[in-house]
């Protein structure tokens, strides 16, 4: 077992060097002073994501979101309360592993960052927030949905978006409303989830909350990341014949699952995702419109009526990137952190923590309203319900943000 471990370390070390060089270049660019006037010292922000390894796509999307936010803040004059101090990104790579994420926090701390934004996956966020807490380093969680992240009483940890408790509650309630309005065509549910904290935690909540409303959870299937073949799961799906299939997994596995369902001609009354990796992803919809159409998802999504969100989407797509939840979640999380530094008029860690704790930030394009933080969680955060309709992702619930009527059940449509 030693040789593979050594090899893995060698690969990891090489990746770190490669990404470190990119990080240094990014930092150097961000730190370039304007000629002709004195500049206050830049404020270093740790931008920590899994940009290599199994979660690399999501991690890179997150990093892009953070860098775009920092670019926008600096272009708008930096932190005005601190004499226009620019934000300077210090990049870190968690390599899709929690323990690497934690060690990256140590490095970021040594480099003197004022705060950290990251680290996408729940399991990584659990480790990075804990490591950051030792140094009283403010950590804004961009995506990580596990409720344990903010439930441990860590004073340094803040989350702008909703956790999986809120998401599964909203998903279950909305499913029940849609099903009731459609005269209850759906009675059985099958949950397919990935094996880490996010998928397992979400599945447990759903399996707990659905039966009291009259839904029978016929099967809960866990799968590894990566899973190369979903035919077995689809065969079990065929045998169980559930009315609703609920996937809770990351992009690659989500796409393979839905394609396998399409191939095996398994058409439930609805594919109803909770934090589905591909369901609210413009990339998936563009590449597999046939498989994607009709899928409902309860996920992070922007206020579709906010012009700033549309403008960001244009910019992102103009760069040849996909406008995904990872990107806009991290963009807004970074903006939130900048607002706290601005309002607290300080880049000291304890002042940032105090400012985030009392934050009432409303100048954003997420459907949350002003921030209200309780134990680190923005309690105004909520997911939106989307559905892929005519090859586009449309918000269907709640009505305040809805762009289209939900089509439920899909089979009858």
């Amino acid at each position, binding site marked *: 077992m030693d040789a593979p471990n050594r*090899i893995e370390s*060698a*690969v990891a070390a*090489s*990746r770190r060097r*490669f990404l470190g060089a990119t990080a240094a270049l990014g930092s150097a660019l961000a730190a370039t002073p304007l000629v002709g006037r004195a500049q206050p010292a830049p404020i270093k922000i740790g931008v920590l994501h899994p*940009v*290599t*390894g*199994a979660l*690399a*796509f999501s*991690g*890179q999307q997150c990093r892009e979101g953070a860098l775009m936010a920092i670019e926008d803040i600096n272009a708008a004059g930096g932190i005005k309360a601190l004499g226009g101090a620019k934000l300077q990104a210090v990049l870190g790579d968690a390599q899709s592993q929690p323990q690497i994420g934690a060690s990256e926090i140590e490095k970021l701390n040594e480099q003197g960052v004022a705060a950290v934004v990251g680290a996408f996956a729940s399991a990584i966020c659990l480790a990075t927030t804990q490591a950051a807490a030792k140094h009283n380093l403010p950590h804004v969680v961009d995506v990580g949905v596990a409720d344990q992240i903010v439930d441990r009483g860590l004073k340094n940890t803040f989350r702008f978006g909703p956790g999986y408790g809120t998401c599964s509650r909203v998903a279950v309630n909305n499913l029940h409303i849609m099903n009731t309005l459609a005269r209850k065509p759906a009675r059985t549910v099958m949950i397919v989830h990935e*094996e880490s904290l996010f998928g397992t935690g979400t599945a447990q909540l759903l399996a707990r909350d659905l039966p009291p409303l009259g839904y029978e959870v016929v099967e809960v*299937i*866990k*799968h*590894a990341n*990566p*899973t*190369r*073949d979903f*035919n*077995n*799961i689809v*065969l*079990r799906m*065929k*045998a169980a014949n559930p009315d609703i299939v609920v996937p809770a997994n990351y*992009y*690659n596995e989500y*796409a*393979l699952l839905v*394609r396998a369902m*399409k*191939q*095996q*001609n398994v058409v439930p009354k609805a594919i109803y995702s909770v934090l589905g990796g591909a369901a609210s992803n413009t*990339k998936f919809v563009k*590449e*597999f419109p046939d498989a994607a159409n009709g899928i409902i998802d309860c996920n992070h999504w922007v206020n579709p009526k906010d012009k700033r969100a549309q403008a960001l989407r244009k910019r992102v797509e103009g760069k040849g990137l*996909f406008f995904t939840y990872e990107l806009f979640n991290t963009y807004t999380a970074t903006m939130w952190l900048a607002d706290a530094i601005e309002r607290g008029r300080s880049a000291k860690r304890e002042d940032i923590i105090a400012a985030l704790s009392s934050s009432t930030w409303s100048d954003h394009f997420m459907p949350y309203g002003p921030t209200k933080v309780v134990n680190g969680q923005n309690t105004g955060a909520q997911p939106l319900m989307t559905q892929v309709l005519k090859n586009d992702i449309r918000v269907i619930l709640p009505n305040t943000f809805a762009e289209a009527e939900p089509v439920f059940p899909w089979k009858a449509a």
Partner: protein
Amino acid sequence: MPIEILWPSLLNGLLTGGIYALVALGLTLIYGVLHIINFAHGALLMAALYGVYFLFARVGLDPYVALLVMVPAMFAIGYALQRFVIGRASHGKDENILLVTLGVAIIIENLALYFFRSDTRTIDTPYALATVDLLGATISLTKLLAFGGALATAALLWLLMARTDLGRAIRACAKERQGARLVGIDVDHVFAMSFGIGLACLGAAACFLMPAYYVNPQVGSGFVLVAFTVVVLGGMGSFAGALVGGILIGAVESVGGLWLGESLGQIAIFVIFLAVLLLRPQGLFGARA
């Protein structure tokens, strides 16, 4: 577990095993015959998958037609890699070969990460979701074709090794390098040819895999461990062993997943693997040393 899904699951596993066999066939030639532990095998599979992807996305070349491009292209890359990089840098030492192939893997993976980002890329062919009803099970057409490809590739490799001068030269080099050199065989050329043929198999594997799978810079690592397992299980250097080993691993993984759950299903692979190593260390088709 409903018993009626056992047969479709087994059949699906057998066909998935065809893909594993395809990936392992190239490895068994390089690793099994030449004793080169090629850590770049997964990264080179990834590179081949990108090749198939770009041929489809940019030129509109169907993945199966792309066989005509990818097989010779990967052969040429393999030949050049062994002749001008691995062979030269290793100075004839096995431990150097290990490090050189590891270095090649790191370079390829990071180049892919740099140029293609870590976006998962897929292709959508008209037949991507096509199925065939086979013995009462609905089977993916692309998997069936991959299985056929694995059988054909194994047969061609066997013919090459058993019936051609090149095959005899490869076997001679594998058994006694100095002796082969003494009888006039250009050992460096034969090694490079073998490496090229091994990579040509990867080119074929990529063409059969891409219609039903995806490519990203990490994709190779998911296959390389399975491929090494298949090679050792089947017997080092045995093409029949790689074929049967791949199919066996596919079937065990599939049925194991059905019984033990998709997360634990892979345990069954390694239980079989350990059992074979304990009871028949030379592998299923390997010759006793």
